[in-house]
């Protein structure tokens, strides 16, 4: 199949992109195009106008600012994978990036594009929730921040309004003794995950966080002190997996159960 006849507008800055989106509420911004490209060709997306934001240097930064990493949404998976930057996540960003699709996809695909597309099985939606990230969003009325865990509302739906642009992903630095685990189950290399479980424990901040993802909708985040000690008990894991918030059953529950066991082992160092 071939895409419908659409026009491309190149945004000169973020404000210009916001303006263009205001002018045409059905316009779609395009970054790496790894999801939107396929959707255009399958005619699942039929915008009259596609706004190319790839040239916006303001969205390409990758730096540490006081106690957080600030990642521009146009940073590619490949750049995060290669790890040639000051990292405050103990290698978690590089690990997650390396597991996304294939290198060819990672060379073009961007962290911000993946987050805004909000595929329930995508990696950055889950990983940023696990890391407790927040997102900077610029719209017609100015700039606001949304916690990663609150950003996605359901499958392919987010709190972004029609003319909003994601401008930064802020990831809090992990302490030196922090431990993380990111496990996913894919039918084969490069496929979207059928199940994702991720855990982060940081002794310095006292944070203990567990994320289930590749669900029907947004990831489920569980955060409380003592969580991982509690889950060392297999019975406690079963109770958690049966929680209504997860609403998983059958094979998907089996997959999450398997990954959960792996994550607990990773975090507790018993693997």
């Amino acid at each position: 199949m071939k895409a419908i006849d659409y026009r491309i507008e190149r945004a000169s800055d973020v404000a210009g992109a916001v303006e263009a989106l205001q002018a045409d509420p059905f316009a779609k911004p395009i970054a790496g195009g790894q999801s939107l490209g396929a959707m255009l060709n399958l005619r699942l997306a039929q915008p009259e106008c596609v706004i190319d934001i790839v040239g916006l240097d303001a969205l390409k930064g990758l730096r540490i600012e006081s106690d957080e990493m600030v990642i521009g949404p146009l940073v590619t998976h490949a750049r995060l994978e290669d790890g040639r930057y000051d990292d405050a996540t103990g290698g978690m960003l590089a690990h997650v990036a390396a597991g996304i699709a294939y290198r060819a996809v990672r060379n073009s695909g961007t962290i911000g594009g993946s987050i805004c597309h909000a595929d329930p099985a995508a990696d950055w939606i889950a990983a940023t929730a696990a890391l407790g990230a927040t997102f900077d969003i610029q719209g017609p009325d100015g700039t606001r921040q949304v916690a990663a865990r609150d950003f996605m509302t359901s499958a392919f739906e987010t709190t972004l309004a029609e003319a909003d642009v994601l401008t930064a992903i802020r990831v809090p630095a992990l302490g030196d003794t922090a431990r993380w685990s990111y496990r996913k189950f894919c039918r084969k290399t490069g496929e979207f995950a059928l199940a994702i479980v991720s855990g982060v424990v940081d002794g310095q901040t006292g944070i203990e966080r567990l994320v289930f993802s590749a669900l029907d909708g947004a990831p489920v985040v569980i955060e409380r002190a003592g969580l991982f000690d509690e889950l060392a008990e297999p019975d406690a894991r079963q109770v958690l997996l049966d929680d209504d918030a997860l609403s998983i059953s059958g094979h998907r529950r089996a997959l999450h159960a398997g990954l959960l066991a792996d994550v607990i082992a990773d975090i507790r160092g018993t693997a």
Partner: protein
Amino acid sequence: MTGAPPDTQAKGIGARLARKEDARFLSGRGEFVADIRRPGMLDVAFVRAPVAHARIVDIEKPEGWESLVYTMADMAEVKPIVAASKLPGFQKSEQYPLAKDKVRFVGEMVAMCVAPSRARAEDLAEQVFVDYEDLPVVSDMHAAANGTAEGKLHEHWDSNVFLETQVDNKAGIADDVVSVRRQLSTSRQCQVPLEGRGVVCWWDHRLNRLEMTSAAQMPHINRTGLAECLGLDEGQVRVVSPDVGGGFGYKGILLPEEICCAWLAMKLDRPIRWIEDRNEHLSANANCREHAYDISVHVERSGRLAGIDCDAIVDSGAYSSYPFSACLEAAQIGSILPGPYKMDSYSCHTRSAATNKPPILPYRGVARTGVCFALEVMLDIAARELGIEPFELRERSLVGPDDMPYTNITNKLFDSGDYIACMHRAVEALDWSGWRARQAETNGRKRIGLGLATFCEQGAHGTSVYHGWGIPMVPGYEQCNARVTTDGILELQIGAHSHGQSMETTMAQVANTVLGIDPEQVRIMHGDTGGSPYSTGTWGSRNAVMSGGAVAAACEKLADRVRRLASHLMDVAADDLIFENGGVVSGDRSRSMTLADIAHTWYRAPQLLPDDVDPAGLGLVAGYKMRPDMGTFSYATHACAVEVDTVTGAVKLLDYAICEDGGVLLNPMVVEGQLLGGLAQGIGTALYEEIPFDDEAQPLASTLADYMVPGAAEMPHLTIEHMETPSPFSTFGQKGIGEGGAIAPPAAITNAVNDALGGLGAEIHSVPISPERVIAALEAAHESD
């Protein structure tokens, strides 16, 4: 990988010669259908049925654009595709290139739209409104075969069955045999060649013929089918097949799309193009492998196979495709299910069920992948029941080397080989006993399992085989046009075509063996019906034997003619001349002439030749037929080790070994390439590839996001061992081996998974072995405890 190191000196049969094709392919200079442009070319998009079974009430063309949209009513003079099996009781289907009156599967073409670009043609297609009246959908082959489906595919038929067959060679077997019975199945798949189908065609007024460039394996067969449907004589159709990016059976079929484009090119007198996209391939042409078996095997306590009883159904889809028909798969099942084994008793009942799915087409291995899966999985279940290793059962049941040539229970004539030694070499190559020791140490969440599968593969099927199966296309003789050009280049024109078989290299190696000519001085011309000898084309692992035989025969005849000319020019007795290094040399090596010198004399200095020279010249046609024509039987054993995660159901291939015997190998490196590609596809069948259909026969995997094909990362470590037992029936002892890699993996991998799950009482009966199927098997075992 094992095998001899590349020999840069020898370039004939058996040499690991680098492929002549590689230079253009590796530098992106191959020419495929989609690379071809013609002035004034228009693109076509098809309106395809969104429902599986419905009466067409009305087709509304978009207002103002009626002249760019065509339906079957516009093509009234075009005849439907009819591929009738000659076996008694076959019920014929008529497949009109665009649906007439009703649609019978999702994706069937209803209208054709033409525009200056594919995108514009798709815009038009979106505006065609078709009013459908739903009919009851036949989505289940069991219901179709058993007569319990509410719907009926073809109104004039008695049932939803194309053909029912029965092979009955039942004989008495001992009372104390162990009998095991299971229901096994393989899922519906696509062949997924890297390049899809595609057509560019136009009418050539000077030659008064249709010129069609098509991604086709069998251009002459396409030409015959096109001429029949379009009412042209065959000389008015030329089919050219350019570089083809994989075929695997899919490109051997006459497509309704080809007929539509040809008709439109004639109607509009413009070049017309259609390039299949992945969505069309996966949803409208989801088309192979779907078998169901109810099978019992009977094994004596000693481990000797005594007999097989089987009832098999093939989901043949809505129509019988040209030229292999809807019944190739079932005909093969009945005749090849006994595999490479000896037995006392055999019966097999088959039904080719008609359902509201795309027509079934052959895919690399054709029914062999299914029957190997069915029988080999059963043999391992029986071995487990008897408490013996799978290879112990097989060594007591395989046809032995001293039995060769051997006529089996379905009258197959196995030509040569040592099936038992081959199996043992695969078992050793895998380090079976080493894996058994590791397996004993892992009894937790992740379990190790070992499996093997053995088969023999009939290639180069002869006239009697296809006639016996009732297939509309019956292969006869293979021919080669050969000529030496004025400057001593050898040109060979054959009717078969390469869709990845490396024939430009291997056929040149055959010429080198006969004429001593450097393969670089040999030009292979194929894939063009304009002037090449008629051939059924490239299918059924036939070209090493059939085209190789024809090339050898033509080179032998040319050698005679060259020898006679050289004898005169060199004043040496003809029988004292030897072919080497691109020329002839006298037995005492005192005199020599190059082929270029001889050709130059013949074409450009005939005054040097005597008056009574034979004027037939340096060009000729020669042919080949294998006798007996049962075909060659290559064979192999695949062995593998897997790890099964009993919590997630994931299956990981830990190691894989293949020992194969393809007789004399024309080029071992090419054979290894065939094995690797075939193995990847076999792993796809075993673990990944499946197009599920819902109750309304809607295909549920229509993009590569849903239809999973293994990639490089899914390939296991592989050890290949070669055996080379010549076939006594072919020119050089070569055998067909192009499909084998794709035959055994589903059986070997399922056996390994069942070995891993054996301790937990679980068993897999269907491929692909998805994590869901593993977990379901474990749950079923848990519930029956």
